[in-house]
């Protein structure tokens, strides 16, 4: 039995509740996404202060992409364009100030090409940063990630790039988006729902989970700190 005294190294975040908050404030649902983007920046700053090295955000799921109204998605993509352009053009952006390496995980081939190009540019610009790591899961689905990994594994085996008897968990992990990162120690979901909604199923097997009722844009530093303190007090057995 191990008491982990100390902050989580990697926190996964399901930032739910943008639309419900907007509706409650009598705004169009997608206005909440604007606030949501700003909250991501808050989290980057708070994590720096708390000493949390890696954040992975469930920004946009495959299901969101398939089922949300086009208008909402376009609104979302426009906000993303603005934010990414700011990273590209503005040296004072928090990403540069905090030296945050940004990665984009998911089926990027399914989102608008110009957005994808911006993301590639941002990944490139920040590739040498190493003080903080922020991974944005976009057009992401955990079950699909596992299926994709299985397919690519099969292809590589056929091509002779890997050997059959070498296929184990360690090799399989190399085919996941999270390759190179430790699993999230803690997953925080805002918005009141008690589900993981296909977020990092393989990587969350031992993650401590905190469900918060507040909607994502309402999250305050104290709420996040409390979740981290909750984690710090827990006894992690890793299944033993």
């Amino acid at each position: 039995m191990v008491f982990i005294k100390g902050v989580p190294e990697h926190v996964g975040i399901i930032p739910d509740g943008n639309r419900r908050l907007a509706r409650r404030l009598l705004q169009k649902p997608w206005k909440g996404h604007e606030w949501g983007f700003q909250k991501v920046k808050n989290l980057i700053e708070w994590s720096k202060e708390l000493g949390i090295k890696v954040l992975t955000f469930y920004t946009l799921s495959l299901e969101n992409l398939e089922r949300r109204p086009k208008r909402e998605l376009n609104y979302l993509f426009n906000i993303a364009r603005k934010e990414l352009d700011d990273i590209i053009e503005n040296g004072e952006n928090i990403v540069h100030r905090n030296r945050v390496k940004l990665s984009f995980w998911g089926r990027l081939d399914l989102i608008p090409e110009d957005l994808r190009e911006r993301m590639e540019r941002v990944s490139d610009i920040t590739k040498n940063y190493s003080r903080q790591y922020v991974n944005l899961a976009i057009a992401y689905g955990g079950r699909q990630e596992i299926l994709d990994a299985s397919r690519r594994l099969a292809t590589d085996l056929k091509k002779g790039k890997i050997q059959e008897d070498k296929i184990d968990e360690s090799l399989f992990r190399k085919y996941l988006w999270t390759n190179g990162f430790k699993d999230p120690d803690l997953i925080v979901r805002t918005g009141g729902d008690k589900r993981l909604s296909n977020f990092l199923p393989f990587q969350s097997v031992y993650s401590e989970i905190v469900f918060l009722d507040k909607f994502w844009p309402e999250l305050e530093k104290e709420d996040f700190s409390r979740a981290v303190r909750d984690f710090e007090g827990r006894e992690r057995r890793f299944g033993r």
Partner: protein
Amino acid sequence: MTDDFVKDDDFIHIALIPDGNRRYAEKLGKPLWYGHYAGAKKIEEFLDWCLEYDQIKTVSVFALSTENLNRNKQELEHLWKIYKENLLRTLSSEKIRKREIKVNVFGTENVWRSDVRQAARDSMKLTAQYSRKVINILLSYGSKFEIVNAAKKIAEKGIKKTKVVESLLDKYLWVSQPVDLIIRTGDQQRLSNFMLYQSAYAEIYFSKTMWPDFTRKEFDKIIKWYFRQQRKFGK
């Protein structure tokens, strides 16, 4: 009300992580195995409660994880004894026959004690004909291993088409049916390598109660809560 009145996609699959046996025993000043025996009894009760809900068709119980195998030999011997006794009981169970309950025992078989393996095989053989209700006992199970093992089999087949891979993965997993509700007792808020692929969209209920103390009242409350949740499926 019989099962015939419940539509096919109204059936739900509950996954159970019955944690807290040992702390229950410690609290009473009893040895660990006392907690496991109390826990086994509670599982039987729990399965009876599930039988009373027409909508609950499948229940998967996390009986033993691959990591649990590192526990001390004495404790493990008690656990094997419990599994064997309970599996043997299914062979002569009136309830299993009447309610047509299929019993599956899945996990890495080669580490099961041999008499447990035999009892499991006998139980599965006897109940293979049934399909009204399904009970999956996961013994020496780990989600990551299950997934990697399935991926390995797919790789060996050389398949690349997505649709085929998806249905093959389902075939190679021990349990392919998606989980609708996970209940974990024992005041821990994590899923401990249990059915993560199948539970991607499940509602998760963490109970502070130690497993042997779990009550019907709390269970009914959880089921009510489950049905109140909006089932959004990631939308």
